[in-house]
Structure formats: structure tokens, C-alpha cells
């Protein structure tokens, strides 16, 4: 796993802790240009014990749990923003990315570790169809009955659009 070096000393300490704690769990750890976000890629099976480790390291709540749909690569990528209220690490946000196959996306629910993820998982379930095993009550949150099983946020759910820069002809 490549050893990433950052200018900010605190971030370096945190990265070193991450590297030796999550040696076997994470497949890839990298940071973004502004040195405030740490991306961790992990496979579907190891996400639970990665979450336990992160909770132990002080990241105690989920800021956002969602998915990104890549139809051409046949995968839905789970994207989880983890934050912390502890004074030491609250400057950084950890983003966990894990790829799920597109036709039957299943992953174990993170609610037992971070209860704050409950409503986020319900929203991701109704928008993308990602089934979270072990979720207390996985049902619709925002959508009405008509849009029950149609996963509107996937790319193949088309809506009427106009291309950017196209002339707006109101009466067409």
C-alpha cells in the first residue's frame, strides 16, 4: 500500500496511525489536495471491522452515507463521510469508498457501529437499491409509494433535460 506523505504534521501522524492500524483492511489510502479529507478504499467484506477500528480511533459519527452509480463499470460505489467531535481529529473527514456490484448491491449495515447512519442508509436504500443487512427498519424515507422500487438516483432513471448552453426555446 503506497505510503502517502502530507505537508501537515498532524495529518502525517494520523496517516501513520492509519497505515499501521488498517494495514490489512484498507486496499488504498490517499488524501485530497487541501489536506483535509482522507479517502480509504475497502472491499465489501472488510467494511465492518474497518468501521470498528475507525470508531476506536475517535471517528464517532457519520456525516453522510451515499452511493455513486457507475453503470459502465457495472458497480455502485458506497461513499461514507465519517467525522469526529474529538478536538484532535475533528479537522479531518474520512471518506470510505467500497465498490458493490451493480445488479445486486448488498452490504452490512453500519448502524450498529454508528447509529447516526440509520436515516442515511434508508435514503440510500430507496435511491440506489443498496440493501443494508441488519438495518433496524429499512423502509422508504423520502419517496412516495409510486417510486417504491425504481431507484431514481441511478443513472438509467432518465428525467427530461436540456443540454447546457442549448438555446432555451420556451414554447417547444
Amino acid at each position, binding site marked *: 500500500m503506497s505510503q502517502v506523505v502530507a505537508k501537515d504534521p498532524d495529518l502525517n501522524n494520523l496517516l501513520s496511525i492509519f497505515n499501521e492500524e488498517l494495514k490489512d483492511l484498507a486496499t488504498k489510502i490517499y488524501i485530497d489536495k487541501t489536506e483535509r479529507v482522507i479517502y480509504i478504499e475497502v472491499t465489501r467484506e472488510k467494511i465492518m471491522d474497518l468501521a470498528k477500528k475507525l470508531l476506536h480511533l475517535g471517528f464517532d459519527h457519520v456525516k453522510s452515507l451515499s452511493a455513486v452509480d457507475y453503470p459502465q463499470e457495472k458497480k455502485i460505489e458506497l461513499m461514507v463521510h465519517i467525522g469526529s467531535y474529538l478536538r484532535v481529529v475533528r479537522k479531518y473527514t474520512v471518506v470510505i469508498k467500497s465498490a458493490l456490484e451493480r445488479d445486486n448491491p448488498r452490504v452490512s449495515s453500519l448502524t450498529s457501529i454508528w447509529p447516526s447512519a440509520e436515516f442515511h442508509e434508508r435514503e440510500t436504500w430507496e435511491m440506489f437499491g443498496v440493501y443494508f443487512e441488519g438495518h433496524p427498519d429499512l423502509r422508504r424515507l423520502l*419517496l*412516495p409509494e*409510486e*417510486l417504491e422500487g425504481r431507484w*431514481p438516483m441511478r443513472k438509467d*432513471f432518465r*428525467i*427530461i*433535460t436540456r443540454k447546457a448552453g442549448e438555446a432555451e426555446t420556451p414554447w417547444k
Partner: protein
Amino acid sequence: MERGVVFIGEIDVFIKRLIRSLMEKKPVKDILEWAISYSLWPVHLMTSCCGVELAGAYSPRYDLERYGSLPFVSPRQTNLIIIEGTLTLKMAKVARITWEQMADPKFVIAMGACAIDGGLFWNSYNIVRANEVIPVDVYIPGCPPRPEALARAILMLQEKIRSVGVSREDLEILRRYVKNQVR
């Protein structure tokens, strides 16, 4: 035949016929229209984000209570629905039920570009136009419309009540038309 028919026959049918006949006579018609136009109470149905401007319109600076319009609580005692902004599918059902619950001479103001024709969210999969669900009397453009626009809408509705009057034959036709519109 449910138990306990009141001794003067079906009371609501009796009162409806009485009111309808009273409404046509000249002196009663004018007094009634004057009274209803100065007592338009909007029901507490905040459909979406234009509700901020409706609350602003009833605040001290614009104060629509000067025209007698007091925001009231339940659909039974009010006669005006203000559809503020976007109607999503879920909220359209609620707006429809609230409209049906209200007592008869009732009016609807569609406030904001979203209620008129979808506005900023015209191509969203979850949006319904206001007139697809409820027969609308006054439309207010703007996103969100200024509180003065809402005051002007209340005044326009008052003129409409005084000119067109309150008996709503158009409601019957629209009820049948709108019933099959709602998905």
C-alpha cells in the same frame, strides 16, 4: 340507515339548500360577499419553502391581518388554502385531502413559480403542478414572491369574491375534471 336521524330530516342537506337559496337574494348576497372577502382565513398547510415568505407576510412589517386574513389551524374552520411553492407527490395527496375537508365556499391561492408550473424544479420526478390537484383561483409569480405580492393576491381574491360571487358551480365541473388527474 345509521342510527339517530335528527328530527328535522337530514340536517346538512336542509342547511345546504337553505344557504344556497339565501345566497341568491340581493341584500344577502352583498353582505355575504363583503363578509367572506374580509374574513379569508388560510389553513395551516405549509407545502414548501415559500412558507417562509407567507410567515413574513403575516409578520409585523406586512401584516395581512389588516385585511382580516388570520392564519388559522384546522381545515374545518378556514376557507382559503395557500399552496406555497412546490407540490411534491406526497404533499399533493395531503393538499387534496385538506381541500376536500374544508367547508364549502373555499378558495385557493397558488403562490410561487413552483406552484404555477414547476418553477426551478420543473423536470424533477417528484413534482406536481398545483392546478392538477386543486382548482386554483389566484396565481402569484415569483420565487419566492414578495410579501407585497401575497397581499396583492389577497386583494385580488377579495375583488373576485365581490364580482364573481361565492356560489361555485365551476367547482362541481372542476371536481370531476381534477378527480381523474391525480396520479
